């Protein structure tokens, strides 16, 4: 049976209550908007990319605890990473939350591990992934930050 305490782990609730990097950086040079048309969740990811390194990352938006915590943890885990490393983190994270019962492997996801409980709630996987698709869109959006691009979960 789906376990609520597995889903709403304390660390997830803590990120929901006090999201990290919940702001709009003045010097962001890439951004993208994510939208889940089914539930109305919206997230904007802002990046400051220097060379191939994510020097700063932040987000804003409205959404459920899962999407908000996922976005908050995302900013923690990709800040200071290269663009390709950020992609690798997403791949590991994606596998972790879409493969129920998958054992944690060597890739330590840090706080993101707290989202692994989502795998038992198929209707909520999109909530956790929305910020990550948005991150990918922001990484690819090399135009000026003013011209935000949009992605959806559909």
């Amino acid at each position, binding site marked *: 049976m789906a376990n609520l305490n597995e889903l709403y782990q304390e660390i997830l609730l803590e990120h929901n209550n006090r999201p990290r990097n919940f702001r709009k950086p003045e010097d962001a040079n890439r951004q993208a908007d994510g939208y889940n048309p089914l539930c109305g969740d919206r997230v904007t990811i802002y990046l400051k990319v220097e060379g191939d390194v994510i020097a700063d990352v932040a987000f804003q938006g409205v959404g*459920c605890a899962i999407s908000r915590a996922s976005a908050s943890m995302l900013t923690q885990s990709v800040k200071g990473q290269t663009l390709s490393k950020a992609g690798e983190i997403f791949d590991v994270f994606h596998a972790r939350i879409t493969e129920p019962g998958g054992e944690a492997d060597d890739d330590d996801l840090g706080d993101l591990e707290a989202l692994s409980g989502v795998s038992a709630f198929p209707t909520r996987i999109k909530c956790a992934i929305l910020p990550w698709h948005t991150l990918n869109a922001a990484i690819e959006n090399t135009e000026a930050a003013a011209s935000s691009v949009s992605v959806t979960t559909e």
Partner: protein
Amino acid sequence: MSTAFAFGPFDVARIREDFPILKQTINGRPLVYLDNAATSQKPQAVLDALVNYYTTENSNVHRGVHTLSQRATDSYEAARSKARQFINAAKDEEVIFVRGATEGINLVAQTYGRQNIGPGDEIIISAMEHHSNIVPWQILSQEKGARLKIVPVNDDGELLLDEYEKLLNPRTKLVSIVHQSNALGTINPVEQIVELAHRQGVPVLLDGAQAVAHVPVDVTRLGCDFYVFSGHKLYGPTGVGVLYGKAGLLEEMPPYQGGGEMIRSVTFEQTLYNTIPNKFEAGTQNIAGSIGLGAAIDYVAGLGLDNIAAYEKELLDYGTKRLAEIGPLRLIGAARRKGSILSFVMDEVHPHDVGTILDVEGIAVRTGHHCAQPLMERFGVPATVRASLAFYNTKEEIDTLVKGIDRVIEVFGR
């Protein structure tokens, strides 16, 4: 226990026996189904009608000379008569079977609308419409250069009739308004809405997708020109619904889709169209679904919509009282005339998280924008939790909902 369920003539414990799906458990808990505004459950009588049709009558209607075809045709046309009686239309041929309320609205937009609405004309809808009563008119307006005018709602979720009256003008060509709001439960004063429009000679379509299951509908008394509803929200099958239209209007309207059944004669040079209702029923229709809808109408009529409305009012009042006692919860929609819908938001907890926690407790609610994004914007919320009640729900189930919300508060208050 039965006394706890019974209100006047209503024996809910016995009624629940008619709905096999309600007997199951979800996540180890008895199912508490509070998503009736999305779709309602089906009584055994409807399931039996579907099985009986496919077991003993399955055949195409209005086609063959053989016995089965006649049986199928009789049952299909009997279902039309039941629908006619149910909404008190004047004639059977004013009842068109469609896929649902959405198709009914699209049909009117694409036939009556394209024929009668042109550049600079105006269509009046309201701020509480379902997307299905917004988008078809937007498509038409874009094609024709017409404009949508929106009747605003107040903070309780009631239409502002004064504003509506001001919107009516010689450019108004159609009014299309929801009878009962799916997101708030508001029951609109459709009698006045029709009367005010008719004073200016403007026809009115009423979207009855929610209303038909909860309030008695009499299209003759209302005087509305079109009325649409879906079978599946009326305890019938999915994929079937009704468009009611006044015969005079339907006869003047061009066909919606071309195909079999809707023709009188076809040559490669020209086609003569069939009379109503067949003109609007191209191709083989949802025969089984229509017969199932007929069985659902029999079932609902057997309980009596007045009895249903009275019982659901008791449930709504009880639910409203219980939910109002929960501090961090805010009910959205406090119309004086309201159907059995409890739409709410919670401080600091997103509706989706509420919905997941309630699901673990076996409680099915809808969370989201309820296909009414402009309305959500009006109330400044991205989404709500919606518990929508039917006559088979009980006060005990509302108590379970309240306990489920306590669990939400517990999980998020850690």
